[in-house]
């Protein structure tokens, strides 16, 4: 193995990568777009539950904002205004309170209330709001049952510091960048193989080991530096920096192995894109468990990308350190070995 040859190969590949109109431009545009996208998204999660009500005979009845508990209750002038506010999502729910509610409650009758929800509120949430409204009415009527509550949060208390969408998306964006570079490297290798340039390189003092090391380092460099740049610009590396660097490095190595494999089964740019798309569909499944936590059912652990995305998510968004991510890191190291080995064996067969 020759360092001089590997360095020459890496410089050549980087030059060619950025001269490729499609992948070179896509890399720059994608990272710029992700950074802009990140900063456009809100930096905090609105944790307030805003409730509107219409009570024609008791205006200003409950016009209060209970900051500590994150509930805001506001009065509106007309029932139509209440409905429009719910539709336009100014309120999570709207309650229309009849004028005779007080008398009805005092006389033991069952007053009728109307609760307006927007169309996408799920049934479970509707039930919760119904309980909340009952509680409010009970308090209003003096029928509230006096109980002492003890609130115990299991795990880190995220009250008041929910993960904003943009930070939830950050590991996803980093992973998407890694995938972009996988396609670029696979395309570079495929075109070199298809047009006989690898053959020319291998008749110089360069050997197959130099070739694989050169391509591997190029792939890791491209993927790793771009994801690091994204994380640095967006502030994603402010905590657990070393762990994030290691995770991104392992992710880059894994996807470099994958790009070797894609190159070994592709003939041209179109087949690289086709195979990569298939891989992307599978590899992005764990991403959804971060974006929509309720979807997680455990089986996404079978997909290797889970360990990259999950580690990044836990580290960046929940400040989980080495101890909490040890299993993920060990899994990544094992998976990396497998990916690189499979990639090299299949590509070597194609070169031979």
């Amino acid at each position, binding site marked *: 193995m020759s360092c001089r040859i590997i360095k020459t190969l890496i410089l*050549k590949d980087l030059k060619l990568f950025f001269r490729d109109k499609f992948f070179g431009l896509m890399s720059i545009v994608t990272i710029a777009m992700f950074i802009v996208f990140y900063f456009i998204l809100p930096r905090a999660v609105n944790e307030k539950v805003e409730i509107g009500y219409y009570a024609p005979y008791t205006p200003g009845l409950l016009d209060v904002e209970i900051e500590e508990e994150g509930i805001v209750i506001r009065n509106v002038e007309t029932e139509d205004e209440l409905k429009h506010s719910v539709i336009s999502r100014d309120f999570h729910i709207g309650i229309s309170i009849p004028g005779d509610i007080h008398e009805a409650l005092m006389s033991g009758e069952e007053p009728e209330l109307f609760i307006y929800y927007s169309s996408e509120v799920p049934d479970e949430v509707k039930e919760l709001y119904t309980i909340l409204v009952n509680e409010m009415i009970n308090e209003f009527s003096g029928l509230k049952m006096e109980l002492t509550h003890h609130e115990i949060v299991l795990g880190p208390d995220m009250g008041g510091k929910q993960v904003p969408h943009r930070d939830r998306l950050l590991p996803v964006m980093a992973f998407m960048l890694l995938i972009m570079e996988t396609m670029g490297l696979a395309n570079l290798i495929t075109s070199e193989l298809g047009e006989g340039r690898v053959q020319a390189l291998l008749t110089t003092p360069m050997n197959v080991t130099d070739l694989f090391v050169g391509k591997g380092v190029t792939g890791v460099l491209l993927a790793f530096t771009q994801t690091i740049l994204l994380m640095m610009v967006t502030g994603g590396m402010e905590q657990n920096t070393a762990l994030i660097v290691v995770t991104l490095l392992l992710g880059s190595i894994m996807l470099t192995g994958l790009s070797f494999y894609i190159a070994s089964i592709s003939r041209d740019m179109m087949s690289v894109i086709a195979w990569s798309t298939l891989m992307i569909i599978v590899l992005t499944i764990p991403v959804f468990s971060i974006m929509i936590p309720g979807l997680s059912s455990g089986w996404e652990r079978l997909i290797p990308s889970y360990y990259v995305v999950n580690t990044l998510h836990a580290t960046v968004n929940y400040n989980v350190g080495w101890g909490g991510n040890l299993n993920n890191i060990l899994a990544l190291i094992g998976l990396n070995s497998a990916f690189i080995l499979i990639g090299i064996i299949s590509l070597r067969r194609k070169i031979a």
Partner: protein
Amino acid sequence: MADEAIGVMNASYSYGDVEAVRGITFNVDEGEIFGFLGPNGAGKSTTIKMLTGQLRPREGEIKVLGLDIMGQRGKVQSQIGICFERTNLYEQMSAYENLKLFSDLYGVRDFDADELLLRVDLKDRGKDKVSTYSKGMKQRLMVARSLVNESRILFLDEPTEGLDPKSADRIRNVILEERDNGVTVFLTTHDMMEADKLSDRVAFINNGEIAAIDTPHNLKQKYGKRIMKVQIMKDGGDLEVREIIMDGSNAADDIYALFKDERIVTIHSEEASLEDIFIQVTGRGLSG
């Protein structure tokens, strides 16, 4: 006697069940241009791949510059230059960058790309992307690339195929210049005229076997017929062409009779071409 640059002993290669090269044996002396001739599919490119360490022979032994090609491939490859049949340049890079890349891979110090580009008439276009080049320009650059490491042996696989006369001539001149500098040239081609003009010795390969090997002159002597074509005018003014085989036992008498009895218009001597000899030796033409 010149040292041996290439020695091939009973080398064979198969692609699956298809035998591409069958037990070929030959040697190439240092400083000679060795033409390796045969039609498409005869085994020329497979032989070149074995000689340059791209393919491992299934059987036999190949020594290049006295070294076993498979055992010491790296050492051999640092001393040889290859011009492939298929253009495999980096098209998004300039000619200068292509040459610089390969000189860096070979570890050439004080590399002068301009001088090489000048030799192949590409100096003015050296900074342009190769994708903007014509086929002839690309091929000239391929030849220049094979020269970056000042190799001791040049392997040229069909270097002038399909080129315009100017590009082909430029490449032929480079080949002759390299030979004059003491470089051994292993040239595969199916252009017999070119092989005849350039080669010190030629080998005919057909169906993976060497059918004949010698200097073009000796091959013509051995297999060819020298013919004298005489155009005579008959009494009615009609023209007639007669052929006299120069190597025949009655050649002198036949020529004397012609001069004595006939009105001779033109006389031409003809010798067999390498293509004629190839057909005679292998029973097939070069185009097939």
